[in-house]
């Protein structure tokens, strides 16, 4: 048993719904009690879908438990088939139904419906949402792929690939697919299939016709891509094109595998982000302290962009994707950090409070944490809220994605000369640091960083505390922490103005 207040991932069947909701002409019959229908609102409200997810819930009740819930499942499956006429059916159990052991797969098969039935086994009491999505996509591909489908002779035709991984409720999946497809067009590579997003069961059947696969989101497509590699001999491209250097690498890999010229794509005039980062105004980005948390794919990519393309100082990274913990740890290792692998947002909050970064890149959870602590934040990964499904085109991948990253990560920061002016004229009544950066809404009063005594009973002298108040807000947390650490290490009991400036000079060496 595990105590949970807020969770990064839902149960595995939510992952299954994310897959099926992205597809066409596929329907899921989920054996589940009535309350589980809440899943629909994730799609209709958060993602603003104009259609209900293609899911029928059996909504069994207490009185059905005494009778035959299996019959109920069969009736619901027949009715769903009659009404929605899908090309293929997906069947499975949510947590409660898993305990009933009704075997939806067997029951649905016994109905002898004239379409393929894909059964899911979702291990609700040990697995989570992303695993559920990966498993569902894998079962769909395995169940529906035509084993005879193979690429035609390469002679005289363009290379063809599958784009794998985008689902419902994914972070910017819709726009990433458009951006990557654009890039492939520049290279002269055809997209045979994009799945799950936009694919029908008939499309999936032809999955073997592509020359290779592009794994856009390893969390959802990794399992299926491995199987395709084994069963169809399709190689996969696993570089995730988030950031300029990753995109360039991605292009070169594509060019090599497809036998095309990389130059036109590499010389795209879309690459503004690198100049934006080099222009003098961005000098102020140097060594901005950033903490990064989210799913593995986005954290790994964001770490690279933050440290190599924006010149930030990454002070901590972590992920809730246990399945990919090893990859995240390896990235942390290279930066001399220890990765925080956890599903507990309280642990993430404590880490952020301790590190006092100037920028947090995270999920909706970190957005709240950063807000409470008065730290700037940008969202880089699911889970996300309704405001992270923008109306405008806003990919994360490709060169345009890199531009988006620059804008959305730099915007929350105080920049350029303003940083100095705030420091110099901090008592100006209109233009002072209590008002925050001039381009941002009034800053919420940060919850004082939990005054965890670094070494026992440190006290701040009143005038030192006042002096600390004059340090601009965007570095105040760091100054407090550095001073306390400095004092603790030297066994200073009362922090004076002198201690404050001693620490400043110590850390600016």
């Amino acid at each position, binding site marked *: 048993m595990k105590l949970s207040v807020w969770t990064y991932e839902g*149960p595995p069947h939510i992952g299954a719904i994310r897959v099926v909701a992205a597809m066409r002409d596929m329907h899921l019959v989920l054996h589940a009690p009535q*309350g589980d229908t809440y899943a*629909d609102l994730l799609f*209709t409200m958060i993602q603003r879908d104009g259609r209900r997810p293609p899911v029928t819930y*059996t*909504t069994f009740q*207490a009185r059905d438990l005494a009778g035959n819930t299996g019959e109920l499942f069969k009736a619901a499956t027949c009715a769903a088939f009659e009404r929605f006429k899908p090309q293929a059916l997906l069947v499975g159990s949510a947590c*409660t139904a898993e305990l009933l052991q009704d075997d939806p797969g067997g029951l649905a098969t016994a109905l002898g419906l004239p379409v393929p039935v894909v059964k899911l086994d979702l291990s*609700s009491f040990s697995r989570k949402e992303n695993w559920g999505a990966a498993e569902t996509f894998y079962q769909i591909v395995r169940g529906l792929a035509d084993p005879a489908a193979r690429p035609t002779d390469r002679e005289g035709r363009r290379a063809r690939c599958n784009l794998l991984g985008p689902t419902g409720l994914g972070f910017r999946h819709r726009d990433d697919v458009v951006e990557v497809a654009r890039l492939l067009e520049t290279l002269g590579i055809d997209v045979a299939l994009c799945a799950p997003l936009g694919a029908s069961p008939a499309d999936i059947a032809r999955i073997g016709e592509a020359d290779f696969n592009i794994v856009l989101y390893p969390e959802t497509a990794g399992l299926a891509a491995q199987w395709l590699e084994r069963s169809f001999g399709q190689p996969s491209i696993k570089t995730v094109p988030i950031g300029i250097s990753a995109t360039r690498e991605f292009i070169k890999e594509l060019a090599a595998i497809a036998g095309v010229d990389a130059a036109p794509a590499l010389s795209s005039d879309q690459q503004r982000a690198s100049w934006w980062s080099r222009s003098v105004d961005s000098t102020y980005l140097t060594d901005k302290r950033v903490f990064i948390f989210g799913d593995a794919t986005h954290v790994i990519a964001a770490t690279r962009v933050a440290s190599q393309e924006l010149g930030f100082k990454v002070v901590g990274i972590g992920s809730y994707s246990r399945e990919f913990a090893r990859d995240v740890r390896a990235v942390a290792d290279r930066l001399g950090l220890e990765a925080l692998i956890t599903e507990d947002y309280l642990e993430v909050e404590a880490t952020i409070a301790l590190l006092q970064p100037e920028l947090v890149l995270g999920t909706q959870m970190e957005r709240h944490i950063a807000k409470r602590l008065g730290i700037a934040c940008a969202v880089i990964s699911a889970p996300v809220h309704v405001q992270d499904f923008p109306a405008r085109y806003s990919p994360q991948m490709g060169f345009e994605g890199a531009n988006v990253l620059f804008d959305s990560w730099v915007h929350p920061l105080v920049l350029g000369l303003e940083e100095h002016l705030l420091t110099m004229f901090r008592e100006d009544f209109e233009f002072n640091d209590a008002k925050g950066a001039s381009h941002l809404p009034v800053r919420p009063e940060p919850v004082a960083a939990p005054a965890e005594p670094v070494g026992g009973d440190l006290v701040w002298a009143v005038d030192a505390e006042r002096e600390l108040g004059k340090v601009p807000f965007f570095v105040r947390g760091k100054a407090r922490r550095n001073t306390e650490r400095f004092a603790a290490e030297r066994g200073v009991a009362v922090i004076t103005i002198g201690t404050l400036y001693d620490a400043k000079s110590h850390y600016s060496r």
Partner: protein
Amino acid sequence: MTLTAVAKSAESPCDAPQLPFEIIGENGQREVFCGLAGIVWLHRKIQDAFFLVVGSRTCAHFLQSAAGVMIFAEPRFATAILEERDLAGLADAHEQLEDIVGRLLGRRPDIRLLFLVGSCPSEVIGLDLSLAAQRMTAKHGVKVLNYSASGLETAFTQGEDRCLAALVAEMPDERPGAGPALLVIGSLPDIVEDQFRRLFAELGISNLAFLPARRSGDLPPVGRQTAVLLAQPFLAETARVLEARGATVLTAAFPFGAEGTTLWLKAAADRWGVDELTFRSVVAPGRERAKRALAGQRELLEGKSIFFFPDSQLEIPLARFVSQELGMVPLEVGTPYLHLRHLAAELPLLPVSARLCEGQDVDRQLDRCRSARPDLTVCGLGLANPLEAEGLSTKWSIELVFTPIHGFEQAGDLAALFARPLRRRDLLGIGP
């Protein structure tokens, strides 16, 4: 369950009267929340209570999705998520639960009352939470209660019903020789509670209590002298256990709008023998204000048709309100359960042209809704945008549960909730 089935089943002691409505009973897919949803408002209302759901990752995810971001600051609820090994041995599960509760209470000394909330998985594996609650009360010196809010047993607002019923068991017996007392049940926003308090005081009813109280320690006594007024229509179980303790449940319309609120107050006034003149003079100012506030909205809403999907059990009183007080035309009024007894004062005020639907088969209901093309559809969050995409105007029913809508002073706000989608449609120039 059809209406007739409800009326005949063993738990239905009241005789179903002949109703003049077309009534459908449906038993297909229900598109409603489970009772866990009640925690979202109950944990705000009872300020020193903590709700610990014993359930699955689904339950935790549902609570998070229903609660949204509004209460991100460490909320007074959480889920103890059952894992593989808890399913293997109940003894072990009990031990783990004890552990979690121990740590929780250690960290939150402000908690005076802890609810262990049962879910579908905890019920299916047969985890006995009442036993656990008793043991923990003895061990920790903090009151630990339990109730079921599972989707197997409860739909949406019935979670509050079960919670309040659990509280009733803790209410002290009324003292011998105690005078008549009024108990209002159903959690109301504090501001509404205060408005009612003032009105009852002016009516001379000062021995008054609300359930739930803002502090868990303030449970009022109950007994033969207690008259109960339901502020919400979904409290059948709470009403039943109060009656079992000797209380009398007053039959009344629900306090929505000028008329509903008047009738609701009147039920109490009659019981207290308040004379007609006093009653009228007490309610007149509020009633007039409410009527004035409604008049403006009525212009827009009069003659507009409305279709209710089943959700909170507020549907029938609200259908009465919009037809009687705003001139709207209810086409279909769905409700998860039709508690005839507690709706006895409402149903006669509903136009007979309305079709009632108990239970649900969401796909069929959507068919009926599409072919009726109502001017306004009241439905859950999962259905609203898809219906809007089909060109229908909708009002999310959950807003009717989360917004102060009771009483004279909120009548205008309640009407505005129905008017806003239509007004917006006009503003954006979307055709009917």
